[in-house]
């Protein structure tokens, strides 16, 4: 089988699995689960084959048709970034599938859930292989749809229903900019093909193009100011959170930005660097004030996404992709570990009510701690290679503000990691649920062991063995350029951060069953809970946007529709309609009946007069 038909299989196998599960396996949950998991592992195997068997770029294009002289196509472009991404996505997703088999065992809608996972795989793999902007956009929207479906898995709870809406609408705002960017790109260059664009885009790329295309990234990768959806998105089942945070959704934005980095003007890059680093620092500290284990991890993801965005802004897209890959391993482990903890504690998510789980759930605890150390960028763990390289890059590039923010983010990472480990695994159990906690079945511990022990620890120094070599070529070059020294700024920052992380670990042991920071400084804690961004958005929508919309409706109905089009005859009734709407429309069926009767009587009187 040649590589193109392999890619066909990789892309369409999950679609087929999703369709089959959705149509035929809705009532056969157990079968759907194993079926979907099996296809996920087959895809991971095929992706591995692609990586080990081919080393050249793969290009394949099929023209679907032409509209107005513009070719609309469907095609594959597999370069070094795509190779790494293909491996990470399919590999991590396959283990998440296996984890879900155990985690969703008692769920009544497993058929729908696993169909959702498969369509999510299909969407993200489409973005990975796409060779043009239009195809990317279509799969981009599919990612939005499938995340909506999965976040709303528990759709009978208000929280999940609202979180899924929030994620979908926030993404839609970003996508508006994205599609305008595609239109602008078409106008400027007359093509949407990545390879042709790369040839045509010179040194002077308009700022607007980069800004518009960046909007899509802001929404999908949860960058400031469209980051608000990500922390609510954990309303979905934990494996979905792992999938969104690690392998699929948020990674899509970073990957896409790395792919079109030649279309970004220097000003756009500067903005990405500053805002990314700023958000990384902010989100890192916000993770300190969350009691929900998944929410705390969600803020951690926001911080890492900020770091990735920052790396692209610094002009190192390959480092961003590397960090995305490393982050995928340890964040998937952290989320799956959190899922295992939640499962073991009978669906208790409050960290303050956990504690002492090290002895009750040894495998989960070991993998979670390994992934946390990777998250903290302990030397020679996976996270260290990518994160410290980015911090180093900001110093070498002379972006000292960015460096400052990134250093803060590194410190914050260690602080919340220390807190999390202390609260969840150490000390004594703080609730009945934690006292009766039990280790999870093998379908759950095996994935976290593979992802956690092998990849979160080893993906860095054993990268050449664990991650197919061909996918690392690009990254290696940039890593070698950033030779590590013991006295380099990134190492110093890392060391300080780790010491502070240890202190945080001790600090959170001071009070039992309570958050130490909240006890000592409630105001700081309240500020870090980060409710003010939602408050701000609510205020804006309620007081500004809604008022504006009402004004527009009023003008449209009365002035344009009423006075301008139908003049006095129509305008009078439009005005009357407004008055009656305000005065008589009170939602009382009886009142309406009375008014209808009076109206009919008036009409009859008018006829018989």
């Amino acid at each position, binding site marked *: 089988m040649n590589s193109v038909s392999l890619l066909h299989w990789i892309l369409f196998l999950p679609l087929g699995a999703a369709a089959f599960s959705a149509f035929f396996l809705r009532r056969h949950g157990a079968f759907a689960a194993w079926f979907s998991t099996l296809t996920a592992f087959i895809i991971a195997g095929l992706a591995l084959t692609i990586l080990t068997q081919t080393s050249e770029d793969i290009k394949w294009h099929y023209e679907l048709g032409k509209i107005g002289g513009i070719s609309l196509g469907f095609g594959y472009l597999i370069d070094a970034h795509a190779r790494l991404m293909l491996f990470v996505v399919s590999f991590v997703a396959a283990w998440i599938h296996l984890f879900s088999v155990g985690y969703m065992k008692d769920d009544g809608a497993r058929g729908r859930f696993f169909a959702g996972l498969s369509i999510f795989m299909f969407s993200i793999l489409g973005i990975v292989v796409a060779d043009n902007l239009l195809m990317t956009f279509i799969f981009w929207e599919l990612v939005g749809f499938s995340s909506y479906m999965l976040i709303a898995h528990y759709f009978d709870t208000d929280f999940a229903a609202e979180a899924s809406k929030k994620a979908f609408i926030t993404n839609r705002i970003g996508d508006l900019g994205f599609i305008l960017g595609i239109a602008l790109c078409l106008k400027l260059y007359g093509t949407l093909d990545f390879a042709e664009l790369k040839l045509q885009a010179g040194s002077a790329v308009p700022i607007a193009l980069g800004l518009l295309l960046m909007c899509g990234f802001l929404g999908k990768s949860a960058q400031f100011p469209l980051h608000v959806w990500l922390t609510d998105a954990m309303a979905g089942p934990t494996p979905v959170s792992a999938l969104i945070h690690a392998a699929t959704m948020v990674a899509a934005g970073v990957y896409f930005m790395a792919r079109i980095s030649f279309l970004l003007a220097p000003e756009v890059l500067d903005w990405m660097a500053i805002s990314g680093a700023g958000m990384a620092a902010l989100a890192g500290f916000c993770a300190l004030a969350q009691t929900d284990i998944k929410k705390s991890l969600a803020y951690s993801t926001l911080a890492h996404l900020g770091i990735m965005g920052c790396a692209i802004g610094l002009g190192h897209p390959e480092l961003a992709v590397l960090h995305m890959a490393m982050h995928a391993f340890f964040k998937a482990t952290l989320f799956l570990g959190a899922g295992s903890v939640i499962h073991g504690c009978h669906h208790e998510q409050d960290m303050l009510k956990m504690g002492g789980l090290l002895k009750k759930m040894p495998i989960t605890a070991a993998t979670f701690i390994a992934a946390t150390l990777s998250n903290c960028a302990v030397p020679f763990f996976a996270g260290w290679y990518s994160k410290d390289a980015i911090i180093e890059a900001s110093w070498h590039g002379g972006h000292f503000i960015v460096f400052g923010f990134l250093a803060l983010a590194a410190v914050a990472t260690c602080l919340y990691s220390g807190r999390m480990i202390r609260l969840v695994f150490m000390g004594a159990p703080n609730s009945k649920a934690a006292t009766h906690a039990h280790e999870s079945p093998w379908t759950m511990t095996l994935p976290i062991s593979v992802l956690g022990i092998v990849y979160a620890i080893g993906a860095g120094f054993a990268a050449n063995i664990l991650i197919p070599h061909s996918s690392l070529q690009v990254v290696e070059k940039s890593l070698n350029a950033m030779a590590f020294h013991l006295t380099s700024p990134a190492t110093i920052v890392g060391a300080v951060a780790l010491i502070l992380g240890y202190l945080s670990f001790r600090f959170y042991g001071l009070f039992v069953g309570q958050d130490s920071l909240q006890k000592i400084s409630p105001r700081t804690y309240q500020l870090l809970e980060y409710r003010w961004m939602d408050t701000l958005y609510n205020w804006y929508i309620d007081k500004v946007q809604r008022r504006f919309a009402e004004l527009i409706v009023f003008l449209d109905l009365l002035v344009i529709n009423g006075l301008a089009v139908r003049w006095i005859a129509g305008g009078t009734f439009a005005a009357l309609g407004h008055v009656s709407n305000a005065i008589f*429309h*009170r*939602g*009382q*069926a*009886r009142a309406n*009946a*009375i008014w209808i*009767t009076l109206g009919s009587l008036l009409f009859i009187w008018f006829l018989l007069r």
Partner: protein
Amino acid sequence: MENTTLSHHLVLAGILFVIGLSGVLIRRNLLVVYMCLELMLTASTLALVAFSRFNNTMDGAIFVFFIITVAAAEVAVGLALIVALFRQRQTVSSEKLNTLCD
């Protein structure tokens, strides 16, 4: 039967209609309101039958057949809706069913 005229029938239909209408306007129990609505419909069919009888055509009578057929179906749907509504809200009072009002 000899001295009944069209007017008698129409007045009867009118009285029935007004009884139904006032029931709709006054009562709050949706079930009663619904029965009153049916009464209004029946009043109109009575008028149709009367017209048919006194004008010596079958048009009105045939019309009534259709109305009754459709009304039977409509009653089934309407009652089912009221039952469903009661299960959802534990009330069928029209005063309390005003969630659509802002």
